[in-house]
């Protein structure tokens, strides 16, 4: 579904060139539950953002559904992000001036196609399923971290994406809440048949996934 072929990503820190991702080839298949593990600074987040088309590779190619995306324009990439990818972040990244419901509906505002579902109804269903329907008219900073992360997951799911990319989704939560979030990710992989990629430095989290991709110094050392 998403395939990376000999992908490199280099950054410039002042004069010095830093290789964040080197020579990574990777295939993510439909319905997979994958983790990308490694110590901090190993390039796992960079890799995830490359997969999510939020960042572009310095070299190499990325294919989405067999189609090379390297030549696509910024707005074409935005459209793919909108329809195919859902992000879940460590710090939730909800917009505080909007209510939970408005945050969840935001991706539907940016869609360029006619939606196959009623956004309002789908949002309600998902909020219900994730147990935060009662909090829909609250502002994000007025609810708990666990509830914020649930809202973020609903936002990631609203467009019915093929893949959910979660960057340290439990990193800002206590272990009990983190466990709940992991259960939810597991469930949506199982029940919604959505591909889930979790980026983590925590081996315990990685163990919950079907496939672990280990990284060090920008390279995949085991997949």
């Amino acid at each position, binding site marked *: 579904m998403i395939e990376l072929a000999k992908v490199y990503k280099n950054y410039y820190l002042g004069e010095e060139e830093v290789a964040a991702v080197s020579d990574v080839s990777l295939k993510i298949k439909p319905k997979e539950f994958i983790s990308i593990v490694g110590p901090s600074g190993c390039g796992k987040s960079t890799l995830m*953002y490359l997969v999510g088309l*939020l*960042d572009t590779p310095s070299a190499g190619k990325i294919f989405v559904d067999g189609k090379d995306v390297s030549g696509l324009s910024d707005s074409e990439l935005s459209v793919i992000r909108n329809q195919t990818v859902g992000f879940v972040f460590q710090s939730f990244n909800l917009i505080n001036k909007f209510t939970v419901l408005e945050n969840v509906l935001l991706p539907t505002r940016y869609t360029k196609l006619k939606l196959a579902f009623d956004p309002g109804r789908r949002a309600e269903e998902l909020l219900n399923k994730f147990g935060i329907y009662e909090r829909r008219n609250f502002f994000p900073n007025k609810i708990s971290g666990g509830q914020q992360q649930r809202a973020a997951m609903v936002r990631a799911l609203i467009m019915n994406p093929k893949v959910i990319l979660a960057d340290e989704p439990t990193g800002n939560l206590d272990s009990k809440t983190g466990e709940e979030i992991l259960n939810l990710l597991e469930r949506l992989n199982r029940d919604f048949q959505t591909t889930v990629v979790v980026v983590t430095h925590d081996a315990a989290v990685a163990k919950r996934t079907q496939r672990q991709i280990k990284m060090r110094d920008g390279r995949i050392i085991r997949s």
Partner: protein
Amino acid sequence: MRLRNGVYHLMTSAVSDFKRSKIRTFLTSLGIMIGVFSVVMLIALGLGLKNYIEGQFESLGANLVIIFPGMVFSEEGGLGGNFGPGFAGGAHFKERDVSALDKVSEIDYVVPMFFKSMVLSANGEEILGYVTGTNEEMFTVSNIELLEGELFSRSDNQRRRKVAVLGYSAAQELFSDPRVALGKRVTASDQRFTVIGVAKKKGDREMDNSLFVPYRSTFGTINPDKTFFAIYLGITSKDAVETAKQRAEETLLKYYEEDDFSVTEQSEILSTINQIFTIINVILVAIGSISLLVGGIGIMNIMYATVTERTKEVGIRRAIGATQKDILLQFLTEAVTLSVMGGVLGLVLAGVMVLVVRQFFPVALNLLAVVLAFGVSSAIGIFFGVFPARRAASLPPIEAIRYE
């Protein structure tokens, strides 16, 4: 549907941001508000003044030709080269000119005008009014009607009788009731005139405060040089106006140089007034526009700050699928909303101000001012908003989302 939804979302999004920083929003709009207010007010003042002066000339009858000293109004209806000497110097018309002009067949009547600001006293009261020395035709030319009594006649003028028609306001101030003025004496520069008529209210400050007297009666202490400020000519018909002007000019050239006087029609005067006020208005609007410019820069400044402040938000929106255009429109909408809000406030304030000022001074608001206020404030919003909005749109998504 999608577009309407989009615009609605953009607007509500902008307003929700304003609610969070009310003081900043208000102060930013204030610049545009003051700018629009001053531009609209200046247009209203210019327009009001123009309407007032035009009204003064239009209240004079049609087929009217006016002879002024100097080259006040050029042949083309434009402003003459020596405006200064026009009113200050030039010809001083004499009775001889009046008689000469009277002989031109196309001219129906000749009205000499002597006009002087003077203290009028009667009944133990004193006011600063005007003495207007003229003849009986003046009442026709200026459409002056009587409230009481009668007008002075041709023979009153020939016999230099000290009779007068008193303007409404002057009569009211001197005698508290205009009707009792009849038969009373009014003194101007030790000359005593008997009031034989009181004029109806004209709504014109000079006319309402005038003592109209036969011009020959002013010869002496009031008008020792026996001169006139201007001569009004009533022409027999509209078709004869051109010929009459020519004949009048030929007549006067016997006594004066070409540059000493100008023979003008009402329409020429009006078009000159129009020209003068167009220039004045352009200058006023240009001055007002400086504050609009400053207001626009204020908006740009705040928008740049907002973009930096909301880098993270831009990153989030980009991650969930917003295109560069979506981000651009979001910030542009905000800038334009901010600016138009200021524009509307300025317009409302100017509207209230016009209603207040109208009590003392003729001001007028027109549709142009309203359209201009909206047009200019949205244009400023777009112009000064587009640069910050482009910066927001061009933020690399990955850097924006990692921004703390």
